[in-house]
């Protein structure tokens, strides 16, 4: 009967391939064939007896050599089926190439060893046609052949050598996912070890479960999203096949155990992009699988079907959801996803309580370990709770038994574990982000140095980038935006200050003076634009630029527990000032600022003015080319103020640059050669004070004029 369906179908397909093919139809046909391969392969697995019960290397129906050949043919066919199922739904070149170039050989092997393969399945040739699974195998092979045929006929260009290499690599990597579970037993017999109790085999398996994730991640992270999805679909299909590989009889064989259910849900999640089922797996099942991996409840030899199936099942359930998020196929979860995961888990949990209570009327089942005392044995206090809190319901001949409190405790425990898992995931995401950002940052730093070398055109890194700017401060189109602020603190600011000048920088509170100065001395970053100190770019050559700067901050940043002398020496050390020069300068400035009596006292005991003087001395200790002062005269007594102004003039007269900000217009007017007015982050103008004097405009008038224009 089945043959009467299969043979005409094959004939019709052949006619289609040879005469009726159209491109759009081809794509649809390939998808249909992919589905047929999936159903055929699944049925073949579902209906057959396990391979290792019918075939063994010695004593089976085939010779040892033929047994090995049959196992290899099935292994290759399984991997090909995986490609045949997923290839029509994705645009992977490697998968298409496998179907075109590897598939014919595998199909040929199936043809050559058709008889031996089926003897391995059914024992005798006479039984072939009486078994439904035979037709499932046949349908799958026909569908694979047609798929291969269509793709070969559509081939327009031969693959490059690189593509061929990739094709073999991909096929080689797919092989372990479809390894026939009986193969280990057939090839090697018994291992003689049970994979539990942290034995070496168990530990190796645990290590493997954890190590395989980063390996796949590293291998796949730069692939396209389509390829990442393809990988997950392929792995989830293979996980379902590996589950079906072990024939389970009766109600207990239904895939209602958490990790078994999860394999099917995972396939649905990846194929249909279903978020709710995916995050159920992500929060609930990964935990369940991890528990199973660490504390496996198997007592069979490691190479038996039960054992190998167990590991395939749980390793897939453990790694796939994590990989899906790590590779970005599914987004990192928000709390909403957790909520829906809890909801689905609750539905699953209640369903399993009911199903357990119902099915146990017929046979022994224990889905999610809710019915037996498996978990209670591990936690002795739970035994009494389980046995003393039972609800009975009857319906006809059936008795429904609910260990309500015991189950409730398991439910609460699992929910707590889910939240813990959330915390762990969250932490791991943060770690991953931090490391990603670190890598990018270091890469950017390396690129910046390369760029600097390029800009210096072979000159040493210690030479100024702008040879024409060695005698000036140059600011070009400087813009600074703080954090996520929308409005820039300073915008498109350009300025040049030359040797021998005392340059005043005036503006209202919050105008952007301190921001400009802080970026100029390297305290703050530059959002865009360029700042140069004596030809050195402060962003690209910070050390060289800073060596030429003396800076007096607006907040008297000093270590209060140090003495004045210790503080100045500390700064001198940072600026690499030689002993003789520092002795000479400390003596000179200490005398100039009348600090002889206090220089060896802790700065904690200094007055405001004394602190300012100490900061000024420290900023001049290396005789900087550029002296930058931020509000240096605020709060100073007339004598101190006079001394600092005198010092500024002298420093400029020695061929250096003095750049300072101030609110006090009279002071600026008195000691500056040129000034710049900044308002609301924008440069309003640069003026030479001699010119203003000639024009009879006072600085105060000018400033007020700008202020009015700005606020108008």
């Amino acid at each position, binding site marked *: 009967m089945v043959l009467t369906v299969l043979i005409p179908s094959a004939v019709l397909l052949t006619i289609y391939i040879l005469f009726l093919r159209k491109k759009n139809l081809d794509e649809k046909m390939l998808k249909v064939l992919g589905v047929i391969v999936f159903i055929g392969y699944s049925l073949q697995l579902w209906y057959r007896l396990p391979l290792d019960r019918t075939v063994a290397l010695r004593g089976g129906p085939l010779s040892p050599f033929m047994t090995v050949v049959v196992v290899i043919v099935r292994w290759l066919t399984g991997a090909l089926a995986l490609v045949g199922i997923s290839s029509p739904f994705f645009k992977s070149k490697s998968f298409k190439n496998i179907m075109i170039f590897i598939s014919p050989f595998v199909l040929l092997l199936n043809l050559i060893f058709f008889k031996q393969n089926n003897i391995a399945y059914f024992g005798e040739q006479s039984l072939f046609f009486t078994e439904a699974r035979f037709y499932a195998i046949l349908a799958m092979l026909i569908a694979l052949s047609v798929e291969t045929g269509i793709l070969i006929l559509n081939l327009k260009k031969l693959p490059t050598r690189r593509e061929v290499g990739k094709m073999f690599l991909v096929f080689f990597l797919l092989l372990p996912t479809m390894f026939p579970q009986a193969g280990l037993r057939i090839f090697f017999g018994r291992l003689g070890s049970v994979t539990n109790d942290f034995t070496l085999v168990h530990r190796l398996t645990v290590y493997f479960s954890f190590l395989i994730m980063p390996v796949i991640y590293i291998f796949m992270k730069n692939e396209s999203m389509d390829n990442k999805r393809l990988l997950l679909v392929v792995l989830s299909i293979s996980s379902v096949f590996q589950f079906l590989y072990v024939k389970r009889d009766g109600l207990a064989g239904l895939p209602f155990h958490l990790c078994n259910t999860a394999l099917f849900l995972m396939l649905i999640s990846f194929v249909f992009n279903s978020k709710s089922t995916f995050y159920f797996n992500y929060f609930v099942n990964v935990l369940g699988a991890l528990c199973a991996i660490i504390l496996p409840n198997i007592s069979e030899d490691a190479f038996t079907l039960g054992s190998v199936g167990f590991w395939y099942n749980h390793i897939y359930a453990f790694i796939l959801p994590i990989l899906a998020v790590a590779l970005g196929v599914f987004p990192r979860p928000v709390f909403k996803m957790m909520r829906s995961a809890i909801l689905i888990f609750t539905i699953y949990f209640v369903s399993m309580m009911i199903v357990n209570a119902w099915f146990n009327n017929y046979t022994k089942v224990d889905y999610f370990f809710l019915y037996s005392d498996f978990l209670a044995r591990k936690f002795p206090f739970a035994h009494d709770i389980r046995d003393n809190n039972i609800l009975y319901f009857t319906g006809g001949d059936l008795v429904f038994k609910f260990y309500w409190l015991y189950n409730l405790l398991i439910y609460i425990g699992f929910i707590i574990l889910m939240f813990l898992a959330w915390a762990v995931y969250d932490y791991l995401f943060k770690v991953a982000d931090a490391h990603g950002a670190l890598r990018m*940052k270091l890469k950017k730093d390396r690129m910046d140095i390369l760029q600097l070398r390029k800009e210096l055109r072979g000159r040493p890194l210690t030479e100024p980038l702008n040879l024409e700017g060695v005698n000036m401060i140059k600011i070009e189109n400087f813009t600074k935006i703080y954090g996520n602020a929308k409005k820039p603190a300073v915008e498109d600011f350009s300025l040049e200050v030359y040797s021998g000048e005392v340059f005043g920088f005036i503006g209202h509170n919050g105008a952007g003076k301190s921001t400009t100065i802080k970026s100029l001395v390297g*305290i703050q970053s530059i959002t865009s634009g360029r700042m140069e100190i004596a030809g050195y770019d402060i962003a690209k050559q910070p050390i060289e630029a800073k060596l030429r700067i003396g800076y007096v901050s607006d907040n008297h940043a000093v270590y209060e527990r140090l003495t004045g002398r*210790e503080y100045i*020496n500390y700064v001198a050390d940072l600026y690499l000032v030689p*002993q003789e020069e520092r002795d000479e300068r400390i003596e000179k400035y200490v005398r100039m600022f009348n600090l002889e009596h206090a220089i060896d006292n802790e700065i*904690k005991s200094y007055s405001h003015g004394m602190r300012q003087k100490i900061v000024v001395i420290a900023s001049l200790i290396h005789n900087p080319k550029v002296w930058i002062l931020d509000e240096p005269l605020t709060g100073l007594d007339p004598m101190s103020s006079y001394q600092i102004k005198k010092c500024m003039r002298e420093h400029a007269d020695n061929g250096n640059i003095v750049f300072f900000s101030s609110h006090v217009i009279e002071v600026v007017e008195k000691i500056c050669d040129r000034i710049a007015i900044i308002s609301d982050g924008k440069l309003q103008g640069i003026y030479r004070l001699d010119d203003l004097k000639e024009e009879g405009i006072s600085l105060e008038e000018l400033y007020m004029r700008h202020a009015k224009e700005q606020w108008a």
Partner: protein
Amino acid sequence: MKAAYKRLKIMTLLQISNKHKLKKPENIKALIAKGAIRFFFMLVIAAACAGLLMLLVDIIGIPKNANLLTFFIVILQAFSILACTMGLSENLYLAKDNPILLSYPALPNEVFISKLLVYFIYEFIKSFSFILPFFLGFGFALKMLSPAYILNSLLMTIILPFFPVLIGALVTIPLVYLRRFLRFHPLIKFFLTLVLFGGGFVLLTRLVKLLPDPLRILAMYDIFVDQMKAIIVSVNKWSLFYGHVGNIFFGTGTGLDYLIVFGILLALVLLIVFVSRPLYFKMASRTSEQANLKAHKQANKAHKNTFLTFLRKEWILTIRNPSEFINNYSFIFALPYVFYLMMSIFVRVDRNELGDIMTVTFSMLIALLMATASNTASAMAVSAEGQEFVLVKIAPGKTSNMAWAKILFNFVFSSLMIALSYLLFILLAEHAIWKADLFLMMFCTILINSGMVLWSFQIDMLNPKLREYAATGALAHAQNYSRSILLGFLWSIFFTALFILFYIDKSSTVALRNLKIIASAVAFFLARIYLFSRYLRAYFKEIEF
């Protein structure tokens, strides 16, 4: 009066908002959700207290009477009084906000009351969140829950927080005077500290000598229970008026008990009004006056190595601020004591092989927990630079050396203390403790702690609180510090569990096991060094003030 009340309200809210972000709930839903969560936690605490009490009463056999409740109240209040005294001695007289608050158009008395109010509000929240559930759990466990009991619980939730605040405010006066006296007499301070440490050790050795040898815990069960009962009775004898609070709950002699409790409260208020309040302004304003410090005469000296420059600076700052140093390393200072006590108990216990494993690995756990909790200096290394960090930013050269200088200091000191504690442990291990294993644990503790020192610094480097520190001189929300302690805790647990696994795994030889233990500690340390140096290279220069 109305104006005074308004001023009090403003100043109180100002002080609270300086420490906690005050915001109105966005909507009624959020308010209900918050309320529900708080209620849930209260229920959990009540259930936990009830469970604990049932265990004490039913299993251990402690009699359920007013003495038991008084015992718990005394213990809880003692902790609160201690916390309030420590906090108030800083907050009332030495706080940075004193000059600001005192300059406001408000009377010093109002500033004083507002400060007490802030503490009372904190104590009340604590009382409402923990003491009330405790009372309810207690009533449930002892089957005493009645409307009268619940009403009394609510009343005491409001009344009890007054006592620690008022007592604390009184005790701080002599304490601050003593502190000032010691500040100007460092020699006496030094000797007092020495006496305190020495006295502690002598007391500890005396206590330890009282322990029976061999120590059989199970055989001592009855003695333990009797001792517990005796302690409860003796605490009650010295419980002052708290005994009356216990009586109120148990409904014995209620009228008089209420009178005494309220009478004492009134007496405390009067003492505050007539003793503490008048002294407040005098004491608080004195601390903002400039201190006259003595000179440290030195010659100018050049150092060519920035690392040494930074190290020297750290050294000077540390020796000139010993109280901060002691604060930072208080746990590690306590480590030898804890080890001595632990060792003395362990060596007396009859142990099997698992007991020996526990002794060895738990020595590491305790050492690690205490050492990692002492990583304050690293977890605040960058933040605590405050505005002085500007100097590092403008300095030409490899300023990231500052990090290594700060870390080296922490490394050396904590490693020395760990080694000292272990040597003490090993020296006292005259019984059959595995000395070689203790050496191994010492080595691992030093390595893991050193890794955590780097990690703590990294936490602060990635999230520095320079501005906050510069503004207040302290970190109100020391997130970095808390994160560092949490990480230290988790990794201590992890390594202890791992080493226990290595010890109980009989498939390895002793040499292989030891190799695994050393390898994990070394791997952790090397991984931290590698990651830290990468983070330092990438992010230190990015820190902005």
